[in-house]
């Protein structure tokens, strides 16, 4: 009870902190920072798009707005709503605070589900000794607090960018998949894909979650366990029919369930159809769906806006010759796709963790990254606090993240405002940031695999 109260106190404090910061947006000017607001997520651009639409022009005219028309209809009216004496975009900011809160709660619920499944599978492997109740909070609570108190999340929330909404949808889809609620998972996935395209790769972890259930130790362990418990008959060693008999008794070794997956597919196509219908209604006079796809997903894929951001692509495409541009666009985007399959094979027993890895990789290689993406994957990372307890480099990564996030604005200032630096200064921090993310992904995957090895060792010792 004490812990729960403590948790809620911190949640409420974080919300209060955001509200305080929202009242000083003019001083902070975060909406203008390239780290916070990208061409895709900037609320200023959204307000501009809404204005264009109100004056019955295409919201995509003039290459200002590149988001979804649905966001325009939801957030647009809020951007023009002014309360006398209050900062502009107050309503939007309040909405983002709510979105952050909901995201955190969903992360917490996901964490609880994961923990339940984890303890169940450990118990069935007779590894209860690993399961001592941690004296602090549960992983879900920690992840929620990490998400809420992460300075990057707070900056994103206060800095009027639409990233909190995107993050909310991604987490919503993961949550739905964890609880095997196919419509919800499909809804989150479709909308997240519609808003920022990159979550499309999350379909693999979502399907794995729906098929196999939440993260568990490798299936091989259960197979070994089952075969050894099934008596000494060597014919049973590791083949299916033999296993199914025992698994019905006590072990949670589920076969791949096709039903929820099919449900998910159906629901996803339904939601996709629905979204497209809504969008085409909204853009009927302005070029319709084709124009929308060209200006949103096409804008993401062709990397049209080369204004500096914390990613590494802008620098490269500012330099590359025009006739190589298409080739390198393909190369860079395939980079993300290349990693999908190997990771999916290696981590298929841990779909949630796989989702974390995908999000981290795409936020490193996406065309318009912002700190909001890092906020999301750092929050999700908190879910695996028990598994990643042995993670190396944690101290180095912590210092690195702090250093880079302070250095980046300073370098930007030196380049843009003072004029004594140049683009290389800023790009150096972008490279450092990308390296940090690579190390984070590599180390966390390594730690997770080590954890699996440790489980296997312990379970074989116990046998």
């Amino acid at each position, binding site marked *: 009870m004490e812990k729960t109260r403590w948790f809620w106190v911190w949640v409420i404090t974080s919300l209060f902190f955001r509200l305080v910061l929202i009242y000083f947006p003019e001083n902070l000017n975060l909406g203008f920072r390239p780290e916070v607001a990208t061409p895709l997520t900037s609320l200023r651009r959204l307000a501009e798009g809404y204005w264009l639409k109100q004056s019955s022009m295409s919201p995509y005219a003039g290459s200002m707005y590149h988001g979804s028309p649905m966001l325009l209809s939801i957030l647009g009216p809020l951007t023009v709503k002014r309360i006398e004496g209050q900062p502009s975009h107050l309503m939007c900011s309040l909405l983002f605070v709510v979105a952050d809160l909901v995201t955190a709660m969903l992360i917490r619920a996901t964490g609880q589900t994961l923990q339940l499944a984890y303890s169940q599978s450990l118990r069935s492997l007779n590894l209860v000794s690993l399961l001592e109740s941690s004296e602090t909070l549960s992983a879900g609570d920690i992840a929620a607090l990490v998400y809420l108190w992460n300075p990057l999340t707070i900056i994103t929330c206060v800095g009027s960018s639409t990233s909190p909404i995107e993050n909310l949808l991604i987490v919503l889809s993961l949550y739905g998949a964890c609880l095997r609620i196919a419509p919800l998972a499909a809804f989150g996935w479709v909308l997240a894909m519609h808003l920022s395209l990159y979550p499309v790769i999350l379909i693999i972890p979502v399907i794995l979650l729906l098929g196999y259930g939440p993260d568990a130790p490798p299936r091989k362990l259960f197979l070994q366990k089952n075969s050894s418990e099934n008596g000494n008959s060597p014919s049973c060693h590791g083949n299916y029919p033999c296993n199914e008999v025992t698994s019905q008794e006590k072990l949670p070794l589920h076969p791949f369930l096709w039903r929820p997956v099919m449900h998910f597919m159906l629901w996803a196509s339904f939601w996709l159809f629905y979204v497209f219908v809504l969008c085409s209604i909204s853009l009927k006079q302005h070029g319709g769906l084709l124009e929308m796809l060209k200006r949103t997903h096409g804008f993401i894929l062709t990397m049209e806006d080369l204004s500096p951001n914390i990613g590494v692509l802008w620098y490269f495409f500012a330099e590359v010759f025009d006739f190589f541009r298409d080739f390198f666009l393909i190369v860079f985007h395939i980079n993300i796709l290349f990693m999908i399959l190997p990771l999916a094979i290696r981590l298929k027993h841990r779909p949630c963790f796989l989702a974390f890895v995908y999000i981290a990789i795409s936020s490193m290689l996406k065309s318009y990254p912002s700190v909001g993406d890092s906020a999301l994957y750092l929050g999700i990372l908190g879910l695996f606090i028990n598994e990643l307890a042995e993670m190396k480099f944690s*101290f180095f990564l912590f210092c690195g993240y702090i250093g880079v996030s302070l250095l980046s604005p300073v370098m930007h200032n030196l380049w843009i405002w003072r004029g004594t630096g140049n683009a290389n200064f800023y790009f150096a921090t972008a490279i450092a940031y990308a390296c940090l993310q690579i190390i984070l992904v590599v180390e966390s995957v390594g730690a997770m695999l080590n954890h699996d090895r440790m489980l296997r060792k312990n379970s074989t010792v116990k046998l």
Partner: protein
Amino acid sequence: MKPRMMAGSSGDTKNPKIKPRPIVRIGIFLISHSIVVSLLCFAAGIVALILLPLFAKNTYISENALMPGSANSMLSSQDVKEANKLVKDIIGLKLSSEEARIEIPRLIAQHMADAGSEVYYHKFHPQMSQFYPLHFFSGSPNSGNIKENHSCVSHAINTVGIIRAPRGDGKEAIVLVTPYNSEKVELGEALSLALAYSIFSLLTRVTWLAKDVIWLAADARYGEYASVTAWLRDYHIPQFSALEKLDADICFESGYPHEQNENQIRTDVISRAGTMAAGLVFKVVDKHKETDKDTLSIYAEASNGQMPNLDLINIVNYLAVHRQGLRVKVEKLYFLLDSVFLKIVGDVLETIGKVARSLNARWEFGIPVADYIDGAATLASSMYHQALGVPTGSHGAFRDYQVDAITLEISPKVSLNNEVRILEFLLRGGRLIEGTIRSVNNLLEKFHQSFFLYFLTSPSKFVSVGVYMIAFGLLVVPLPIIAASLYCDANVLDSHCIKEQQKSGPASTNEAGIAFQSWRWLHAAKVVLVIHLWGAIVSLLPYLMYQFPEMTPTTSMLSWGLLSIASLLFLHQILGSPYSCVTVNQSPNREWAVLKSMMIAAAGIGLGLMSIINFATAQIGALLIVPMCLMVHPLKHVYRAGRLRTLAVTACNISLGFIGFPPAAFLFLKAYSEGLGSVSAGDFWNWVESLWAWNSATYLYLGLIHLPCWLLFMYVLLHPC
């Protein structure tokens, strides 16, 4: 990176066949010899800093388009005679200050208009000093005007003339600034006005002008910086507030010079020329110190250690030395000229240089003692002014708009009392400025070829960023090494402890001890975070105290201190004391080591950041912080070591703890330089106030990096281990 290496090394012991990769081995080597390596690096850093004057290169003009001195000067003695008339007019006015305030702008405006240029008056109020610690970072200078009631008398009036270039498209401009005190004009100021007038009238007639020329006769009643910055602000950020208009109407009659009908001088609009390519502030100082040549002093430091492009200084230096035969000076710290230490170092360097040359005639790195001392004194002054972050003149206002500007202070060799001397002097100074303008006029784009980050060691020698970064890098390199080695040692100790526990009793096998092991630094991180939060609160407290303007400096200082301590206690009350969390599994040795490594990491990040914002501050700060970080050791822990070592370490730590505390260090320096009697607690407040009045990032450095680091130093020192 380091935990991995340790893991690699511990893995080594189990299966010795696998050798770690070379880079890992280098890392392990560095960490295991961290003390030697860090001492070496630190010493090398200090030596490199001392040797910097030796590595200074001769300046050269980097931008080919400038072509200084390639054209003959067109300024004739006729122009100078005209200008001399203006001097006589101004000096001969003999007015009360109230009349002079209006009469001198009128006179200047009339001359400007007669020369055939556009003229207008720019009226401004002095700005109150305010507390904007983050101002330097916001890029564009603050446009929020203060709504205060100014009486009409408190206006100051700048007079501005613009020549439209016959060959230009009006997109670029060169600015000449002549500050003068309208309440009491001295001969020097009159001469500088005349100098500007002679050039200005020449430039209205020339055909080669491709950039507009703006002459700002800045009314320096409220300080020359204030007037220049007010004009620049209105030039760049137009204001359309109704209040301004109203104000202008009320004060119209009394505030502005009475206009004559024949020349319409506008008062309500600010005419603009193009973006500024360069700004030249020039002043004539009538020093009564006889020298063999006329002297030109160059001041270049703008706020936060920003410097104008080196090419601008190069042109002026080249023209002054090679065309006009002036002696060029830059500021130096004169008391260093008598320094015994510098003399010894200079002697040694000279000897080494001689020996080297005798071995091989092509090795030329020695410099004469006098040159070394002079260079070191100039370098120290350059570094000091950059570190302070306070501009050395009104040219600093230009840098906020990314305009390169310098102040030229010309002083004649003898006192200017006869007319022939004045004419000669004006001709020489005028030709220098004309040549500079002609050079800048040739410029095709902004100054960008030459250096922005440099220290001057003489007017014709500089140390570039690539060289002085080495000294700083060597000073800072020990920080990550020591942090990593402390962290790894603590981890190894910890795992040993756990292993021993496991050996002693298998029943007490506690896997929670192993779990979270790599996240154990979180507690130390929390402590460091809280302290830095405290640092932020302390640096913001003056904002609160500014609400009570009646306080004297001493009471302000005292209340600042008290409030700081109170906030520290409050933070510990709600967020936990720094020494609390010692769990069963932690070996006692460990906690302070992790705290120290966290403190070092924070200091390293802070210094790295500051070296980009203002290099000189970081360099001087590193000289203080790095020894603090390297030396600190809990006093309780030290007593277990040998006696001599105990004494040495304790003495070092306590003296560092004293020097590291900013107010103590400041008062100590002040007492050292001015005697004990002149020191009071309010001095520090005044000094700090000047820092934020000039938006210096050094203030933030002190509050956000240095002070927390010092407090953590004290925590580690008093750690109950």
